[in-house]
């Protein structure tokens, strides 16, 4: 295939690269007074890129000799990523404005990070995987310490950078082992080599690659950075970290596991089972004692990643479809929760993050309390809400391959997790009211909360046919 045809397939990345370079020039020549325009232009670019991802040229296929896949799986993941990135872009200006006007680099860095995430989910080669991952992470490190005068933000950025660089090193070591022992970095070539039996060297490569990727999805035992980084980073950035890069890393993990290491599934299955169980248990138990809502949501994301991993344990198309459905619903739930956290500010407009301050929210801000409660119930997977459905699909896939004891343990751990979600609901509805939050001034955020609340409400079940078909089509394209 010629380079021109290949370039057409990478249209989403192309649009975002040209757009972010153009916006960078706007930021350079106009300065921070252009932030609002740059913000909305970035959101629009992400929308256009999502369209380009949904309808690839010539119906998709392989580009650049297999380095890049434009298939249903990457389209599904990119749609989620771009939506999450766009939401974290549009909610940012109001959060940052109290200290100083938001700098125009924020939306641009999110765009550049989105290019990296697009490369990750479309990767057909270890090199695409690595460069995409680095592009995403490097922009994320900068975003974490974006409020450079705030010592917590700087600390978050530094911790994220040091640990992220270590994880990248581990991943790169794994990739070099895989390359050394299979002689190729292409996923298809690695799968062929793994199919002829797994040598010890290849096994070590596999383990290191899995460890590096587990860090990026913050699965236990590589989760330790998550609470600190989520707590320290500015809230819109935390919302971004908890949604878009998680989807990208999860999709990447699924693709590497199935496409490149599919023949060695018995080897990675053990790792994934351990990670899934440990993440759900630790995410559930460690969250109980938290007093900071952002830390709590960090543990909640660890917990949810664990549940999504159960789908990968199955290793079937149904299992992968369940993972993708899980990520779609998870993005709505987690973005909704962080949008609610963004509303938590005292009368002076300073953001507050303690769970105590939520006391009696049902009396001071009934609508916000109702939305927050819905997200919490949904994250806990309590049946009438939509958050139940992906959990059901995941365990259905696990039972489908005969691993029903694992499914039983998984369901038991979700009960532990339910405890702390319900504790927040109890704080909001049954405790004495704390001082009321400042009134809402942004219609954008109100609308976004309403939309995500509707999606996780029982009305979300109306989306099951479309979501199910799309995720199954996405999963089928990997097998």
């Amino acid at each position, binding site marked *: 295939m010629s380079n021109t045809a290949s370039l057409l397939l990478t249209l989403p990345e192309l649009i975002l690269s040209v757009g972010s370079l153009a916006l960078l020039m706007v930021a350079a020549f106009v300065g921070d007074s252009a932030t609002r325009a740059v913000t909305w232009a970035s959101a629009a670019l992400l929308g256009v890129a999502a369209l380009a991802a949904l309808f690839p040229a010539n119906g998709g296929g392989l580009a650049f000799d297999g380095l890049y896949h434009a298939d249903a799986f990457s389209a599904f993941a990119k749609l989620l990523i771009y939506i999450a990135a766009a939401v974290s872009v549009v909610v940012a200006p109001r959060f940052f404005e109290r200290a100083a006007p938001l*700098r125009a*680099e924020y939306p641009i860095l999110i765009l550049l990070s989105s290019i990296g995430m697009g490369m990750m989910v479309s990767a057909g080669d270890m090199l695409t995987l690595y460069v995409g991952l680095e592009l995403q992470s490097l922009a994320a490190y900068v975003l974490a310490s974006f409020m450079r005068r705030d010592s917590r933000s700087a600390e978050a950025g530094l911790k994220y950078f040091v640990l992220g660089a270590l994880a990248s090193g581990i991943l790169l070591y794994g990739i070099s082992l895989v390359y*050394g022992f299979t002689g190729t970095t292409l996923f298809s070539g690695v799968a062929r080599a793994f199919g002829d039996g797994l040598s010890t060297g290849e096994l070590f490569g596999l383990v290191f690659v899995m460890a590096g990727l587990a860090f990026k999805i913050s699965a236990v035992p590589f989760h330790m950075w998550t609470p600190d980084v989520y707590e320290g980073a500015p809230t819109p950035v935390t919302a971004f970290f908890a949604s878009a890069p998680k989807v990208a890393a999860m999709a990447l993990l699924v693709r590497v596991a199935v496409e490149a290491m599919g023949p060695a599934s018995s080897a990675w299955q053990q790792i994934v089972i351990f990670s899934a169980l440990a993440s759900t248990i630790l995410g559930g138990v460690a969250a109980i004692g938290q007093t900071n809502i952002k830390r709590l949501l960090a543990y909640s994301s660890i917990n949810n990643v664990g549940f999504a991993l159960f789908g990968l344990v199955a290793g079937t198309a149904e299992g992968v479809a369940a993972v993708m459905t899980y990520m779609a619903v998870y993005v709505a739930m987690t973005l909704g929760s962080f949008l609610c956290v963004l509303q938590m500010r005292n009368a002076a407009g300073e953001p507050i993050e303690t769970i105590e301050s939520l006391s009696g929210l049902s009396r001071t801000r009934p609508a916000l309390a109702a939305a927050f409660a819905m997200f919490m119930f949904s994250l806990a997977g309590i049946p009438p809400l939509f958050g139940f459905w992906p959990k059901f699909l995941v365990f259905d896939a696990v039972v489908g391959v005969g691993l029903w004891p694992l499914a039983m343990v998984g369901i038991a751990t979700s009960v532990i997790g339910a405890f702390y979600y319900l504790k927040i609901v109890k704080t909001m509805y049954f405790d004495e009211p704390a001082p009321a939050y400042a009134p809402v001034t942004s219609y954008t955020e109100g609308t976004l909360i309403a939309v995500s609340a509707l999606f996780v409400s029982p009305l979300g079940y109306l989306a099951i046919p479309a979501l199910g078909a799309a995720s199954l089509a996405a999963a089928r394209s990997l097998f």
Partner: protein
Amino acid sequence: MIQTIAFYLFATLVIASAALTIVARNPVHSVLWLILSFFNAAGLMVLVGAEFIAMLLVIVYVGAVAVLFLFVVMMLDIDFAELRAGYAQYLPFGVLLVLVLSAEMIFAVSAWSAGGIALSASVAPVPEGVPNIEALGTLIYTRYLFIFEGAGLVLLVAMIGAIVLTHRTRSGTRPQNVSQQVKRRPQDAVRKIDQPVGQGMDL
């Protein structure tokens, strides 16, 4: 023969200077030992025929990264004597790390002896009679074009990130404005007057 001698020379120096990087008391000396170690690693790369990597090591690592390390060491205001006071306290942890690392090395060696490296099956075989820098060039800019441009974006993000995080506009500075200087004409700045005798100056 001479290659064997050169290999042992470089390899010994790499290991020795890497060890000295860790044990040197003064962090500036550590950086200098690190530079020596990079240099000898470059020598090793030449020995295996990877000239381009050797050149990269010298230009990028010795020329740029080590200089950056030096800046960072000089930028931090750390009392290193105080840091070393905790040496005994962290000794058990250090020993643990040494154990883990040596276990990993044993693993790596056993992994290496477990399976042959099948480079013959690689998708892009090494062409004979072409210097490897040229062989790299023919691949990077054609087959791996997409990743190459992605690498450009990574560098761009690094640039934006460094500026976003460390640059601040200082008040009270008077930077040179070239276009303003060029635009200035003599008639804006110079006035010719026929000064009458005995009258005051008009400024």
